[in-house]
């Protein structure tokens, strides 16, 4: 069964990779690249959820921090490699310490609050040099990178992360991490070092999120406060509820995504209620839905 899952993953990524090459259309390539980046982002969330039992409801911050740091560093005339290392360190420490200190429900709320704070703070971030001001609501621009390059890098990253994600479940480390996800105390009572397992889960999630953040910002050559939005934060959660093989769960996923979009368009004042409901209901039903998937 697990071998079938691995083969399916390889085939899915290979198919998604091939279609833009065959069609050779700018929009199709752009769309598939974005799909690949969202997939990497979701896998990053999955590393935390599947391997440490800590679902984040503010994972947009893991996407936005590297993107913003890269943009600020570029606008200040520095390189883009240092911000990658800094964001790796910041996000890793954030996830690792929060997962060590907080229970599942507290972790969900803490990540949600952090993401909201960043969403609120980002528009206030303005850089001025001479008589030029950048940042604020408009966000920051980044150098243009050819779409084909982003496309190739995105699929290469997606392929590697998807393989690691699937392969890890079959390793001894993955089994021990799964035990921590299901029941920390029971895992401890068998001698599993909880902090070590959470270290690996946080590290894998962070590495993947930073890669997704960089690819995302360079695909648009621009980063704005919307990268910290609630919508982006709940995206991996909704996708993971549905995207786990059972057809009815896939329909549920589409329904939830559609409902989120529709609420945002029709009654923007109420769409946060939808996310609040998810925030409350996911800790209660999330794992059951995930298990069914």
């Amino acid at each position: 069964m697990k071998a079938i899952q691995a083969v399916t993953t390889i085939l899915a990524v290979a198919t998604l990779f091939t279609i833009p090459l065959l069609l050779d259309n700018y929009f199709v390539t752009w769309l598939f690249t974005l799909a690949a980046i969202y997939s990497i982002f979701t896998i990053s969330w999955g590393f935390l959820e599947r391997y440490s039992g800590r679902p984040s409801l503010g994972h947009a911050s893991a996407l936005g921090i590297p993107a913003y740091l890269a943009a600020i560093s570029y606008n200040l005339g520095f390189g883009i490699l240092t911000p990658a290392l800094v964001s790796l360190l910041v996000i890793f420490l954030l996830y690792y310490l929060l997962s060590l200190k907080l229970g599942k429900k507290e972790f969900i709320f803490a990540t949600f609050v952090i993401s909201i704070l960043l969403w609120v703070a980002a528009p206030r971030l303005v850089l001025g040099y001479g008589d030029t001001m950048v940042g604020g609501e408009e966000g920051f621009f980044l150098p243009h990178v050819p779409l084909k390059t982003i496309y190739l890098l995105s699929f290469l990253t997606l392929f590697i992360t998807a393989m690691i994600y699937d392969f890890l479940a079959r390793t001894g480390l993955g089994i021990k991490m799964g035990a921590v996800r299901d029941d920390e105390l029971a895992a401890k009572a068998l001698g599993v070092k909880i902090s070590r397992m959470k270290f690996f889960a946080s590290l894998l999630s962070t590495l993947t999120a930073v890669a997704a953040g960089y690819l995302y910002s360079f695909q648009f050559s621009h980063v704005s406060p919307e990268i910290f939005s609630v919508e982006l934060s709940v995206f991996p959660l909704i996708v993971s509820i549905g995207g786990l093989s059972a057809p009815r769960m896939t329909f549920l996923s589409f329904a939830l995504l559609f409902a989120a979009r529709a609420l945002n368009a029709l009654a923007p004042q109420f769409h946060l209620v939808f996310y609040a409901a998810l925030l409350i209901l996911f800790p209660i039903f999330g794992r059951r839905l995930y298990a069914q998937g």
Partner: protein
Amino acid sequence: MLRVKSISKSINHRIIVRDVNLELDEGEVMGIFGPNGSGKSTLLKVIAGIIKPDCGRIVFGDTDITFLDVEEVVEKGICYAFQIPRPFREMSVFENVMVGCLLRYSKKEAKKRTEDILRKLGIVHLAERKASQLSQGELKLLEIAKALSTEPAVLLLDEPFAALDMKNALTVRDKVIELKKDGYAMIITAHRMRILREIADTFAEMRGGMLHAKS
């Protein structure tokens, strides 16, 4: 082998375990019985390192394990099986047991060792089943299997026969008797002395947090 000296534990200003002393030799099985809330589970959890005592000492072999973390106590050779089974629900029975084996062996050897444990407890046919799909009796056996995966010298079985019908209780009892024959030292708790009679070498009654030896 295991010496518990004057252990006390209070929770929320209520004394749960009061000045308990006990000794367990190699291969010895001690049965502790007593009503609900008498402190049996708390005592086992204190020995296992899951709960820290307020005072007293626990010595295993020549090592003072009183304030060691539960992972370190397991490493020393004492493992606790929960009263209400705590399986890794999304994992198969095989993976559940393999977790403990992986901490001690390579993956190949851990697989072999897991199979042996499942066979010993008569649940090898459940190997591929998800833990969330097991019955209460099967969960009790899985809980013991998980504890065995740590290769303990002392097994702490917290009410292994509780919440089971007669048939399942007898199945679990027979497996525990086999473990005794294999030479495991055990402390087993139960509500009543009767079910422990055929297993334990020594008995003690727990009442109001105090342990009284019984013949």
